[in-house]
């Protein structure tokens, strides 16, 4: 360790309580800055990550609507899906039909149900049990019909995997009868990406859901997700344009477009995050400037002696600068830890907000943004020592020694 570093550390240890308090103050400022950066980038990146969870970059919904924005459905879905699959630039297409099925004699009367094709679905990841069969795996023949449900469904229904129950559609409220019903077995538990965690959900084979809903849903879907073979934004946009041109009854939206729309709505959030981040930079700057100034004022005699025994002005400048740098570094290191812990805690609170997809995060670690902001705080804190460092280097030796002797 160089003598300069030894002296700087020794100076900071001179008033340990004061140094610790300053470091804690910088840590809080750093944590606030980090959390604001994580919040500003987190919501956008979390949304992007959510949309790209299974690799699908495009959403195809009924003309003029956003995905699951209304109860509108796409008619003639089979032809549309086949046309999309026939495009060599499209790697996979996942159609889905969302509806509410009745649960006779259960703890809750109905469940939000997704009709999916298991082999291409992008709505859940299986976490326990077995998946439902795909359309080519004899889904129709399976009796009872395998279903995948989420954890909330199991909790609220009091059921477990392997249990069977009846789902029904076409309810006649007056006669209290259902037109169609099927016995399903709770084959697997899944984590659904786009459904709020507190909402029970069930996934069944798409064709079975259509059958339950009746003839008018024979060839309908709510949404199709499409994956471009090439993942770059230009290729994705080319596929989107092709869909828009060749399929006039649907609206195709890319992940990037969706994110842009979300970003516009989140601009106020980002402005708030920016202001709070700037405040934290200011706090860090002031803390370091105050402490270093105080330290220099207390050590005028010592600094004069350093100059007297042969330390150049530049050496004194570097010495004091180093003290500011070490102070800032210690605070930022603590702030990084504090910020991550706080973000995790706040994220847990916000994730419980009703109506949010289960997989949505508010605070997301973005290495580039985080390191840039912490580096900015480090530079700010170090520069905060500039004025006191310059004043220290300019201390008149004789006068300071005399003042110190008199004082």
């Amino acid at each position: 360790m160089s003598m300069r570093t030894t002296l700087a550390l020794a100076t900071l240890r001179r008033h340990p309580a004061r140094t610790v308090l300053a470091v804690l103050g910088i840590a809080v400022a750093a944590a606030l800055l980090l959390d604001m950066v994580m919040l500003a980038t987190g919501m956008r990146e979390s949304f992007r990550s959510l949309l790209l969870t299974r690799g699908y970059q495009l959403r195809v919904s009924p003309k003029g609507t956003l995905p699951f924005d209304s109860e509108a459905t796409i008619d003639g879905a089979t032809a549309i899906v086949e046309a999309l699959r026939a495009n060599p630039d499209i790697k996979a297409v996942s159609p889905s039909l969302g509806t509410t099925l009745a649960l006779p004699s259960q703890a809750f009367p109905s469940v939000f149900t997704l009709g999916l094709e298991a082999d291409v679905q992008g709505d859940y990841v299986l976490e326990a049990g077995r998946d439902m069969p795909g359309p080519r795996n004899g889904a129709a023949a399976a009796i009872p019909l395998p279903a995948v449900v989420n954890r909330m469904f199991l909790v609220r229904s009091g059921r477990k995997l392997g249990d069977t129950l009846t789902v029904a559609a076409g309810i006649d409220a007056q006669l209290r009868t259902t037109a169609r019903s099927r016995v399903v077995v709770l084959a697997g538990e899944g984590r659904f990406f786009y459904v709020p965690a507190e909402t029970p959900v069930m996934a069944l084979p798409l064709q079975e859901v259509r059958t339950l809903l009746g003839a008018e849903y024979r060839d309908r879907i709510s949404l199709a997700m499409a994956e471009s073979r090439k993942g770059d934004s230009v290729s994705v946009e080319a596929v989107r344009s092709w869909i828009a041109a060749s399929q006039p009854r649907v609206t195709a939206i890319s992940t990037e477009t969706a994110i842009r729309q979300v970003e516009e709505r989140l601009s106020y959030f980002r402005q708030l995050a920016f202001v709070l981040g700037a405040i934290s930079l200011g706090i860090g700057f002031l803390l370091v400037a105050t402490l270093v100034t105080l330290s220099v004022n207390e050590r005028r005699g010592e600094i004069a002696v350093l100059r007297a025994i042969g330390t150049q002005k530049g050496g004194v400048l570097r010495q004091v600068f180093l003290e500011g740098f070490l102070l800032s570094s210690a605070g930022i290191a603590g702030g990084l830890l504090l910020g991550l812990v706080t973000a995790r805690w706040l994220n847990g609170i916000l994730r419980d907000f009703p109506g949010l997809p289960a997989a949505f995060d508010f605070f997301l670690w973005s290495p580039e943004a985080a390191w840039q902001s912490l580096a900015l705080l480090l530079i700010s804190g170090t520069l905060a020592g500039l004025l006191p460092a310059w004043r220290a280097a300019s201390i008149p030796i004789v006068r300071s020694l005399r003042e110190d002797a008199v004082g």
Partner: protein
Amino acid sequence: MGDAEVHAVRGIDLDIARGEFAAITGPSGCGKSTLLHLLGAIDAPSSGRVFVNGRDTAQLGDAEATAFRLRHIGFVFQRFYLMPTLSAQENVELPLAEAGLGKAARRARASELLGYVGLGDRRGHRPTQLSGGEQQRVAIARALANEPALLLADEPTGELDATTGEKLLALFGQLNRDGTTLVFVTHDSVVANSARRVIRLLDGRVASDTPRVNG
């Protein structure tokens, strides 16, 4: 000083030869410390010249004067001015580090100097753990770090009791016998008489300049 111009020293014409042991004495305010600061290139005269080791220090800029002090001048102050948060060893190493010496060489040199001043076993102690006399010895070791041509001491026994002061003056005598050129300032004529030459100032001028044969 303030709004008034004060001539701290005037018309001083002095030669101090290599190897001399001189004391500058006089009443308070006579310009003793100012003269010491001029000799040590901490201060510059408003007129005149100050030659140390053949170099006119009055003509040096701040950076050059600082570099000159580092290599050629050693300072000992009345109030010791050790860095309170560094050990004795580290305090002695300070000017060595400034001179660019490597860690191992610094350590060795500092140990040697502390041994020379009789504090070889107190290297790791902080100034607060040392007596006044011991702190002043550390300050002397620090002043000797870069083998200066001239050692200047401003009231070196001012903060010490009589017995400790005598021991310190004995160390000064030893330093001088070992070849160090020593000039110290004191208001105490008894202390001044421990030197081999006593220069008495009065109102900024040399009132008397007396070699002491038995000093």
